[in-house]
Every structure is written in C-alpha cells, then in structure tokens.
C-alpha cells in the first residue's frame, strides 16, 4: 500500500484531452500538400523542385533565425512555417528565379508572420504576403510561365531559375500562357478535364484540382480543416460566374472559373489558414463569399487575369471584424447581437 503515500498530482479538470495538438494539425496539412507538390515537380521538372525547396528552406531558416535573434525558443517545431514555405513555393511560377524565391520567403515570414507575433497572431496568410510583395517587385518574372510537361524538364534547369542574385532573369524557352490569361485576353477557355487533372500551364501548385481536392478532403476527414470556407468560395464563385455567363457568354463559365488558376489551391489551402479566417460558422460563410465575390470581380473586370491572392488577403483583413459582428446566439438568450 506504499503507493498510497506517494505525492499525488493536482490537476484541474478536464483530466482527459482529445489528443489532437496544433503541431499535429500543421503536420497533417503538410502531408495533404505532398501529392500537390509531387505533381508540381512531375509537371514542371527540376526547376519546380528547386523553387519548392528554396521556398521551404528560406521560410524555415528565417523563422528560426528570427527566434534566435529575439531570444525565443525556436518555433519551427510546430510545422506551421513548413506549410507557409510549401504554399509560398506552390504559388510561384515553376521557373521563378531562386534568389527572388528566397527574398520572398524571408519577407513572408518576417513581415507576414513574425512581426505580428508569430503563430496565432498573423492577420494575413504569410505565404500570400510573400507572394504579394514579389508580384509588386517582380511583375514580369511572376507572370512568365514555363510550359508544363516540356520534354527536357528532368534533364535541364530553366536558365531563369538560376538567375544570378539581384539580376533580371533571361528566358530561353517560349513562355506558356496560363488558361486564365488566354481567357482574359483571347476569350478562349481551356478544356475542363485538362484543368481538373492539371495538364495546363500555371504556378507549380495551381494546376491539379483533383490532387488539391483530395488533400483537402483528407484534412476535412481528419477534422483539421473548416470545410465551410472552400464550400462557401466554390458556391459564391459558381453562382456569380453562372449568372454572368448566362447574361453574356463571353464571361467564363463556372467550371472554368472554379478549376483555373489558383482558385483551388487558394480556396482549399490558403483561405483556410485558421489564424487569418473567422472562427464562427456563420462568419466563415461570409468570409468565403467575400473571397468568391472578389475573385470573380477581379477576374472579370480587373486588370489582372488572376485575383485569388488579393481576394484572400482582402478577406483576411476583414476576419477580425466579421468575428466581432457575427456572433452565434448564446444559449438561453434571445438576441444574436451582443449588448454591452
């Protein structure tokens, strides 16, 4: 009976936990991105592989160094920065100069995440902050696309990829046009099945809708992603573009809208950044609808062929206010709106 004389632990209830931890969620998001990443390398070859590796390395390294510099325990172990790096890399053209990738990665972590206070405090999706800065700084490089499935993709590295730091890239191959720019400027829609399978030109990760949806489905199944966000984006884009297409068939049809460009990757993996999206179910529907509407508006009337990045960043900025305004009705109270 000696064990009864042991000192017992005092814990406050609950004494049990669900057993899902933040690092586990983040790790699973990385798993869900692996098929997309492998397909990107398969479609675009060595250049894409180098871009992805540089993106992840620059983000992880920056976060680690910033933690060291500010005398904090390194936070790379929570895996969230790996997601940022991978997503950031996937939003870039596969032949994007590596030095620019590195620069963007540093910006994404330093200005997109660390300056706000690190994990849990970022207002915007850090990967998109990095990309937005690159879009502003290198407008040509970020809209010059390497065609998918070129025959020498595993034997040669695009000359633009290895551009010497601080130099402008030189493109040696004929650059491919993305389905969105073809649509925007020539009003020709790519085949839906090609878009779905990912056989078109574009950024590394914005090609295979199928693999992105599979990754998303895995996370929803593991209850590690809020399915309402992509659902709301898909619905709003489909409805809006459906209406516009019915009025004037020059406007792209819903299936093209949904499957082209960065919409899939953005809706499934970037808009769902937990920290930068609202927390309540109704708030999340509004947030998704805001993104969907912005995407359609930018794509149809804006000067750019693509608008997913700006749409998400725009909605990120509104998330805290959505949470403030839209609150679920508390049990036993009559009003939806909070009173002070």
């Amino acid at each position, binding site marked *: 009976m000696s064990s009864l004389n042991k000192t017992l632990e*005092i814990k406050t*209830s609950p*004494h*049990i936990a669900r*057993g899902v*931890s933040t690092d586990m969620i983040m790790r699973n998001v990385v798993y869900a991105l692996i098929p997309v990443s492998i397909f990107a390398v398969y479609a675009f070859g060595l250049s894409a592989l180098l871009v992805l590796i540089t993106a992840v390395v620059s983000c992880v390294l920056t976060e680690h160094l910033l933690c060291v510099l500010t005398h904090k325990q390194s936070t790379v172990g929570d895996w969230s920065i790996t997601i940022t790096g991978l997503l950031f890399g996937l939003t870039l053209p596969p032949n994007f100069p590596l030095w620019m990738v590195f620069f963007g990665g540093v910006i994404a972590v330093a200005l997109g995440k660390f300056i706000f206070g690190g994990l849990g405090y970022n207002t915007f999706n850090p990967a998109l902050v990095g990309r937005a800065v690159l879009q502003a700084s290198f407008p040509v490089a970020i809209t010059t696309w390497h065609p998918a499935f070129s025959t020498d993709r595993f034997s040669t590295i695009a000359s633009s990829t290895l551009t010497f730091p601080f130099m402008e890239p030189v493109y040696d191959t004929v650059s491919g046009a993305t389905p969105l720019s073809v649509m925007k400027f020539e009003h020709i829609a790519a085949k839906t099945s090609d878009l779905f399978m990912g056989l078109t030109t574009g950024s590394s990760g914005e090609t295979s809708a199928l693999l992105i949806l599979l990754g998303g489905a895995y996370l929803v199944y593991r209850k590690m992603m809020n399915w309402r966000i992509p659902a709301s984006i898909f619905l709003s884009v489909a409805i809006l573009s459906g209406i516009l297409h019915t009025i004037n068939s020059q406007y792209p049809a819903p299936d093209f809208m949904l499957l082209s460009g960065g919409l899939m990757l953005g809706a499934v993996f970037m808009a769902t950044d937990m920290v930068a999206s609202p927390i309540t179910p109704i708030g999340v529907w509004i947030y998704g609808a805001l993104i969907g509407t912005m995407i359609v508006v930018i794509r149809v009337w804006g000067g750019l062929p693509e608008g997913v990045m700006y749409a998400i960043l725009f909605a990120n900025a509104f998330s805290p206010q959505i949470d403030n305004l839209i609150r679920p009705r508390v*049990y*036993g109270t009559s009003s939806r709106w909070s009173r*002070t």
Partner: protein
Amino acid sequence: MALSLFSNKTFKHGVHPPETKDATSKMPIRRFPFAPVMIIPLAQHIGAPSVPVVKEGQEVTRGQLIAKATGFVSVPMHAPASGIIRKIGNVPHMSGKMVPGFYLEPFPSSGQEVNEGTPVNPETATPDEIIAGIQNAGIVGLGGAAFPTHVKLKVPEGKTIDTLIINGVECEPYLTTDHRVMLEQGPDIMMGIKYLMRATGAEKTIIGIEANKPDAAEYLNSIIPAGMPVSVKLIPVKYPQGAEKMLITALLGREVPSGGLPIDAHAVVVNVATTAEIGRLLPHGRGIQERVITITGPGVKKKGNYLIPIGTPMRFVLETVGVEDNISEVFLGGPMMGPSISNLDIPIVKGTSGVVVFTDNEAKKRKEKIYPCIKCGACVDACPIFLNPSKLGILAKAEEYDTMVGQYHLMDCFECGSCTYVCPSNIPLVQYFRMSKGIVRKRSVKN
C-alpha cells in the same frame, strides 16, 4: 424494443470523449465494509452548513440525526454507522481546507440496523410534506452538484412545472453508478418519481438515458406502473448532456433562459440515483447514510460500483479496492469536471459520484506544451452554450473581465470543460473561465 425508445434529439455542439465505462458497467453494486474511523463534514451540500445536535463521546445509531439543517437551503446529516462520536472539530476537506465536522468511530460488533423515522405516505402526503421529507432525509443531488434536492422542487408563486426529468444520462466517461442504480433499483426509482411528481405537480415524467445504456432504458420502461405518465427516452451519447440545461433542450426542445433556472423552462431535473434514494428513504422516514460510487480508472485493481457509507476516508476506499504502484492522480467524479485531490484523508461525501485513479501512463499521454491560439474554432464548435471560448481566453489573459461578462456572456459558462478538451493548443480555457468568474463574483460582492 430499445430501438423504439431511441430518439435522435439532442442538444447542439458538445463533445464525445471515449466512454471508458466497460470496466465497471457490468459490475453489480457491492456493499463496502465500515471504515474504522469515519469523517463527516457538516457542509456536504451547497447552502448553509448543518449544526451538530450530538455531543463528543455520545453514542449514536446508524441513521440517527447528528446535525440539523439551518434554514431552507440546507440539509441535515445522519450517522452513517452506529458508533461513538469521537470528536467534533475540524476535518480535512477536498478543497485542501479544514472544515467543521465529526469523527465517528463505528462499533465493530454492532448489527448496524438503520433508524426509522416518520414515514411519508406517497399517496396522501401534500407537496410541502414531501418536500420537508426530502429535506429531513438529508438528500442532495447525487450526480455531483450536491445541491439540496428539495429546494428545486419548491415551485415559486406564479411558476409551473409541467415535466419532471429524471437524469439517467451519466455523460461523464468512466462513471457507471447511475447505470447500475437504474438496473438494480428500478422499483425505488419509480417510487421516487411518484413522490417527485406529487411534490412538483408535474404532469409527466421523462427518464433521459444515453444510448450506451439500452439495458437500463429497456428495464425501466418495462416496470413503469400502469397509469403513471412516465416515458423513457434513449438519446445520443454526447457530453455534457447530463447538464440540466442541455438535458432539457435534448428532451423538450426548450431552452433555459440565460441566468434562469430549469423551472423557467417549466421543468425540473432530478438525478436518477437521487430519485432512487428518495423512493427508498421516504417510506421509512430514514436519512441518507450511504451512496453508490464507481471506483475505477487504470490505477485501480478491483474496479467496480460500490455502496459506500458517507464519511468513509478515501485512503480506506483505495486500500480496500487496491491500487497500482504507479498511481499519479486521484479525482472525484468524472474526468471532465471532477476535481483532483492530493490528500487521501478526506472522506466520501454525498456528492461523490466516482473515484477515478490515473497512473503515470495517463500522465505521460498528456501534452504539456501550450501553443498560441490558432483560432481553429474547435472550442466554438464544442461549446454547448455557443460561447466563443477562443476570444474569452484571449480576454481572460488580458484581464478584460468586463468585456468577458458584458459582451461575451462569461457568466453563462457552466464550466463543462469541452473547450479545454478539444483545444489543440492545450490552452487551459475552462480554467481561465473558472478563475475569471471567481474574480468577477468577488468584485461584485465588494461593490
């Protein structure tokens, strides 16, 4: 048969922790021996403590009144065993404080006959007589709340109760006391319902049971006396369905207004073991001196459901059932809301529904690292009363108590712990809220 009792109605949100009831759910209730010394605190209920009516050194018989109630929100104490009052003074309490109480030394050779009092006739007694009878029996909510049962039954002027709800939910993992009571004390439960319906004027009774206890539901449904408006409902397994508010919503589709009581939703909820106790004690005018407790958890050798005299020291309980060498934590009640104890010299009290012992293995499984809130929304989806625990947690850290109360309904939180249970960042949310509520209450008393 059980299928026809099933209803998929439930409350919204909540969580579903592993039930871990298999180790004891099939174990019949067994009687515990008397401990050599019993410890009986005077305050085993919410409300005014009782006042001793016996002296040090006095011999008492089992069931004899030893402390009387003071006021309406108070209940008396009865001797759990025939013996001698060794000392009236301070006794250890699970809060860590010493509180007024008795030390009782049972006579080893006594027959332990139970004292009889004035019976309450279930057919003829008036509501007030029944309410007085329940108070005189020293009955409190045996589900764990330990609120004097008779207080809930007193219908204030201008209010009505149409439904009596018998709470056989037992949504806390590990606990199987209510399950066994339902299987083994059916006639007592029916008798208790008779008293409760008379006392409250309720038109009908619903016995709410979670779907993991179909045997109990079937059995109780089969023994409902002819003509009694009692029905049994099996509802989906979900925590915290045993909370009064959640059970009322699950069974009646009504909400208890914020800050209100079940009576404001025309219902009263009584735990099933409490009901059985009423049905068993009142016909003899006896007082409560023992209760059924699940002793379980990975650290316990002889797990089971035991009928244990009130006042039995925890050390005696654990010595009797035997514990493993690597025990690390003992808590009273279920793992979601039960407080853990450090001192084994505290006694079993009326509100103790379970004793669960964890070992180093469970302690190791628990993650200690706390991450920042990633706003995943798991807590928002778990909170049964639709609060925003994530936001409340951030506000608690910033000590913004006024905002917590005024804008985020802090005082509606009944501390079920679902938010902490699901939080992937391991943030002690419910712990923050308990503390914040305490601070808010203290401040409002001061002002």
